[in-house]
């Protein structure tokens, strides 16, 4: 009796049968990560997909420098006459940008390209999928327009930096490279798309509640559109957009103090039209704002991450100009010792705008809660002065616009009675002084055309290698290896 029950073969067979049925299924149903088939169902999914589009502006998937916050600045500030490389730049590719010797395999040029397209892909996904989510139509329309605003902004950067670029408007579905080959689209075609996206985005709300501050607005879309038209020298169209912003009841104005443009406490204020959002003191989820690494240490032997091209940049400013002390520093109060530390070496003064003085201790400057302004009202006023000057010459309206900016900086009005050319040069000089470290200078030099960019850089001895090919950056080498349909910009082959 017992014997039959305990016969070992019975046990073994039981175990086998039991385990055979326990044999694991091979399908995967992850619990810790979302699969695409589970997504784009709810209103919350739609919002999250657009939040991700914004995050492409202030982060990098591999933890590299963010697009706004440093990477873009490596091209438009470092490759301009505002900056040269710092001794602390150990990467030869960064140094090459500072001295105009970059080649198509430059990793930083590739990185900017990558970050722009990563954001575009996220925007494409949102634009294609948000309409299918079951949610409030008004909200869905807003979200799609926000994504279009960012897509317009990123393509606008692409087309200005690289010229003709692949115009990708939908997400890839295949991993096969043959399905992913596209040609460069003509600059004009890319601009058409940018204008279409931004025009659609002008239907965005003028304002948001506090919780949504930082999202793209109608005013931001008009402003960016104005800038697109200015870049294309379509003056009447630009003027129309600028008029809308200035007179359309948006309520933008200059901060009374220039310093407030770059304060954590005054972020998303009256002058800020669209800013990339940064935050500090949130612990490990601080975004890295490497432009704030202009202050790295009280140790005066340590160089900041970026330095001015030379003293001439600092010397653009008259001592009375309040922008000078906001833009540069050469001494900092050290709370730990109660003393001022004075930085005096071949590379001083250092850049100051994005240093987050709310952080204590101060020397933790890979982070900063200072927003990065993409478009602010001072930009609109100076564009307005430029556009009016181009259409009607330096009339009172043009003077009025530039003088508002100068008055806020506590400097005297621009000399009256300038010629149109002299007025235009004054506007560009004003732009340079107003926007140091804000990612405008390279664009401003190049969009003037002719030899202006090359001539400006030639004034800096270290940048003597500059030539006319540098008015576009090269198409990244690896892109052309993977897709032989892509041609190279002139002079880089």
């Amino acid at each position, binding site marked *: 009796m017992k014997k039959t029950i305990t016969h070992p073969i019975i046990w073994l067979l039981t175990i086998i049968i039991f385990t055979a049925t326990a044999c694991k299924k091979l399908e995967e149903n992850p619990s810790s990560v979302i699969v695409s088939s589970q997504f784009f169902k709810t209103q919350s999914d739609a919002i999250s997909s657009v939040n991700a589009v914004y995050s492409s502006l202030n982060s990098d998937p591999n933890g590299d420098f963010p697009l706004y916050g440093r990477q873009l600045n490596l091209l438009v500030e470092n490759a301009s006459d505002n900056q040269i490389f710092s001794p602390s730049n*150990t*990467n030869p590719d960064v140094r090459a940008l500072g001295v105009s010797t970059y080649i198509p395999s430059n990793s930083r040029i590739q990185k900017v390209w990558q970050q722009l397209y990563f954001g575009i*892909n996220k925007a494409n996904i949102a634009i294609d999928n948000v309409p299918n989510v079951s949610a409030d139509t008004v909200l869905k329309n807003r979200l799609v327009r926000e994504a279009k605003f960012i897509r317009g902004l990123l393509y606008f950067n692409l087309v200005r930096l690289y010229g003709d670029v692949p115009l990708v408007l939908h997400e890839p579905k295949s991993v096969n490279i043959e399905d992913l080959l596209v040609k460069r689209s003509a600059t004009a075609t890319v601009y058409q798309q940018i204008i279409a996206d931004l025009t659609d985005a002008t239907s965005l709300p003028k304002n948001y*509640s506090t919780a949504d501050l930082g999202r793209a607005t109608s005013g931001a879309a008009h402003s960016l559109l104005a800038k697109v038209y200015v870049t294309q020298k379509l003056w009447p169209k630009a003027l129309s957009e600028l008029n809308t912003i200035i007179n359309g009841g948006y309520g933008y104005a200059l901060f009374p103090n220039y310093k407030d443009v770059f304060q954590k406490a005054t972020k998303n204020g009256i002058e800020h039209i669209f800013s990339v959002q940064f935050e500090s003191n949130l*612990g490990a989820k601080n975004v890295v704002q490497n432009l704030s690494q202009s202050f790295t240490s009280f140790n005066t032997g340590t*160089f900041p991450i970026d330095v001015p091209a030379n003293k001439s940049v600092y010397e653009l400013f008259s001592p009375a100009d309040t922008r000078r002390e906001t833009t540069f520093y050469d001494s900092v109060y050290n709370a730990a010792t109660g003393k001022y530390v004075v930085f005096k070496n071949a590379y001083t003064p250092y850049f100051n705008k994005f240093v987050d003085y709310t952080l204590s201790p101060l020397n933790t400057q890979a982070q900063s809660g200072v927003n990065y302004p993409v478009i602010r009202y001072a930009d609109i006023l100076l564009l307005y002065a430029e556009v009016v000057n181009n259409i009607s010459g330096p009339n009172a309206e043009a003077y009025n616009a530039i003088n508002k900016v100068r008055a806020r900086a506590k400097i005297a009005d621009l000399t009256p009675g300038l010629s149109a050319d002299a007025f235009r040069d004054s506007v560009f000089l004003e732009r340079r002084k107003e926007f140091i470290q804000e990612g405008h200078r390279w664009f401003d030099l190049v969009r003037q055309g002719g030899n202006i960019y090359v001539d400006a850089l030639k004034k800096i001895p270290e940048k003597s290698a500059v030539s006319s090919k540098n008015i576009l950056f090269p198409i990244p080498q690896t892109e052309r290896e993977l897709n032989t349909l892509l041609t190279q910009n002139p002079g880089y082959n």
Partner: protein
Amino acid sequence: MEKSIHRKKIAARLMVFLAIAMFTKNASAQHESTPIINSTLIGSVKDSITKQPIGNVVLAIKGTTHAVTSAPDGSFSFRTGQKFPYTLIISFIGYQTKEIVVDGSPITILLAEKASSLNDVVVMGYGSQKKSDVTGSVGSVSKNLLAQPAASFDNMLQGGVSGIGVTQNSGQPGGTATVRIRGGNSISFGNAPLYVIDGFIVYNNNDNANVGSIGTSSNALSTINPSDIESVEVLKDASATAIYGSRGANGVIIITTKKGKKGVNNVNYNAYYGTQTVARKLSLLNGAQWASLINDVNTSDGVSKTYNDAQIAAFGSGSDWQGSALSNAPIFNQELSVSGGDEKSRYLISGNYFNQDGVISNSGYKRYSARINYEKDISEKFKVTANFFGSRSIEHKLPGSAYNSINFSNAYASLILTSPIATIKNADGSYNINNPLNATPTNPLQDIVATINQNTLNRILGNTAAEYKILKDLTLKVTAGVDILNTNQQYYAPSFTASPAGGSTGYATKGYAALGSGNALSWLNENTLTYNHTFGDKHFLNALVGYSTQYENGKSFTTSAQQFPNDLTTFDNLSYAGIANLPNSAARSSSLNSVLARINYSYLHRYNITLSERADGSSKLGKENKWGFFSSIGVSWNVNDEEFFKPLQNIVNSLKIRLSAGQTGNSEIPPYSSLSLLSPTNYYLGGKLVTGISPIQIANPDLKWETTTQYNAGLDLGFLNNRISIAFDAYYKKTTDLLLNVPLPLYTGYASALKNIGSVSNRGIEFSVNSENIKTPAFNWKSTLIFSANRNKVLSLGENVKSFFPVAPTGQVSPVIVQVGLPVGTFWGYDTNGLLKTADLTNGTPLLGGVPQQAGDTKYVDSNQDGIITTADKHSLGSAQPKFTGSLNNTFNYKGIDLSVFFQGSYGNKVFNLLQQSLERPTLTQNASATLLDRWTPQHQDATVARATNSPVPQVTDRLIEDASYLKLKNVSLGYTFKTEWANKIKLKNLRFYVSVQNLFTVTKYTGLDPEVNFYDNDNTKQGIDFGTYPSTRTFLAGLSITL
């Protein structure tokens, strides 16, 4: 009922018999003729040549199941109901089995060593096989190497078996090693071998042991007590590994733990104690030398000098930061094991305590472990076994560090880089935090001492098996086991340290605490049916079929907080913190279903063939390609058994030829790799954190196995009565359908996609020579020489892709390339040709583009001769893969004295000395290498190092890709075993004392701390990079071993 009464009666009688037997033990002389005990036999067993006693020899009476085992001194005593004379069968591994007729008088039995070890049994996957019948390439690690003290058994594999390459990644106690069998097959995933411990397939994934860890990674294999290991077999070719199918491609390491033996009850105690010292230090500048370097930098910047001559003289030698955290550190190990067995069961119980302090303050490794191995023959047909193992190890790691935004794996590098003009301690003994060159008021030595970075690993590995003989030749085996690894990580960077804290420092975060926990579980069920039959006496067949299921899951979380009001509660109470950081958690699971079959057939043990097949279904692969099939064939021929060979047998007494071919696979990719995944990102709206969700991976439903096709030809030779035996193998492996993160055009919004593209080949030769050079009763000298050479080459990376650069640390240029035609992970940089002379600036010598070069700067070689130095001039500068590796182990025995001397070496491997790059790159703040003493100055133009400038661009040059060939005297040990009589006097069966030195010296041209180094741990493409790791040590120790 009747039956059981009958049984009870028999049992009662037996008890009486036994009682009488006990009682009569001391009076046997008077009761010789008692009818119950017919015979008592005493004697001893010795080696026929050396006359050394042999323990653990099994002596059995022919025709019965009665057997005893000899004691370590060779003695045995046998009491049995058998009448004299009877036949005794004496058997022992490595010796010829002997049958003798005994008549009752005490005897000394002399055992002769086997003429050939071909009758040995070799442990294979899913069973064992007579060595003569083996068709594959299998190597065993010698007992001598297994007896060496080591924290983790992967350290002991180095130089142990031909074809296996082991590199200690760093000197961190409890740290990891990189293990490769016959080179790396994969570029992106899984090159480590498969570990099988007592039949349980272990997923050795160090990720399970590292939950959001800071610093070097922890080694999951270190949880296993190396002294529990009886044998380690390394399966290398497809004939041996194909039975492991999709996990066999990287070779298989089969570990068998010690078991109890029938009839012997032993209590063993082993202990050693030792001291470790740092093997090597770097030559750095002293205070005065450093100050004068700064002045040179100032000169090149065109600013005034920082220090005047008096100041420079006053600095003198300055502070020795490098040495400040170093001290001699103890290492201690002890273990106790009890083992034995009776007619029906065998057991072993062991416990171990291992404690290794680090030579750097506040680092070390401790392990407690216990094992129970049990085997029971429930009946002649039915056997059950259980192997249970548990351990707890606690690792105190150095915190990683960021020095001037360069991330080092440990804080030792930041000591090296601290300027010698900064004082270490104040006059009152407190740490000096007022270093004028420091970014924060901190002290790098204090950082090491005060930062807590500990990782506790708890592991339980239990495996049970039941075997039932359905028929005489047919055995059913069912095994079920579970492996649980629990990891707890605790970190605290106090507010007064510059230790890393979530991307910032302890100082900046005002105290940073992090906790992490991970649980990994894997269970395995295997069911096999083995048919083992001899047809006639010529055809030997062993056939195996089976199926198995293995499931693995892992869950982990990390959490951290910062801004503590004080540093009292550390990580033990995060609620004191001012800021809670966003926590992380993760979970994954995967399963593998398999069906397997193997046939071993031998004709006369002369002609052998092995056929094996395994089908694996993995959850991790694309839905179109879940299942893979892996088969192999192996044949071998014992030529020496042939009639025609007889004339040769005086010289060559054994000769075996082996040939095999087959396929194995690799799918060591993370779960969910074939799916379209979305990941979270963050943004801020209204100053608040919001979550964004976006795709990070395009689905690839076609994702399938990497397949390695391997061909092996082998030759086993024995000379001079097998006193010299040689095993030689040549192989070729080609891995296709590589699981590769293939670059996509970036305009797609993705950098890469995981696809099966490209192929890699490995080809090589390897041999081992075992020689008994001298064999006399008093003196014995044995040598083992092991040699391996492997050539690794990337054959293809897919269409339009000739090469790619593995991701480099942020802001750096990748020093390695993966390129078709070159080994995986080849160093890529410039050749240099000394320094530029003034004349070079005007005579058209090619100069570095973009950076204005001056006399005294490095002169780069224009390898493409286009007149300018650009990145196009970079080319291959060699790789970390050696041209060959080898080891030589000599053991000497003279009476009770034993001496072993073990050399191990590597030739042709390169190391990128990234730490040296940093040390040769002057800045105004960090210390520099003593090589800068020979820097170019206008007064000293005949220099080896470029002139001092402020932070020159660090380039990857031939100067920094150093020859890291080395020869190490890994171990010398000298022991003395007391004569049995002496040991017996103090009531011991055995007593041995020994002293040993590990890592006594290293011969190498490499200028860094140790030519064995992997900053990037097991990363296939970034091997051999030295970015400052934990220094390796030299260990002196003494130990004893006692058997009761």
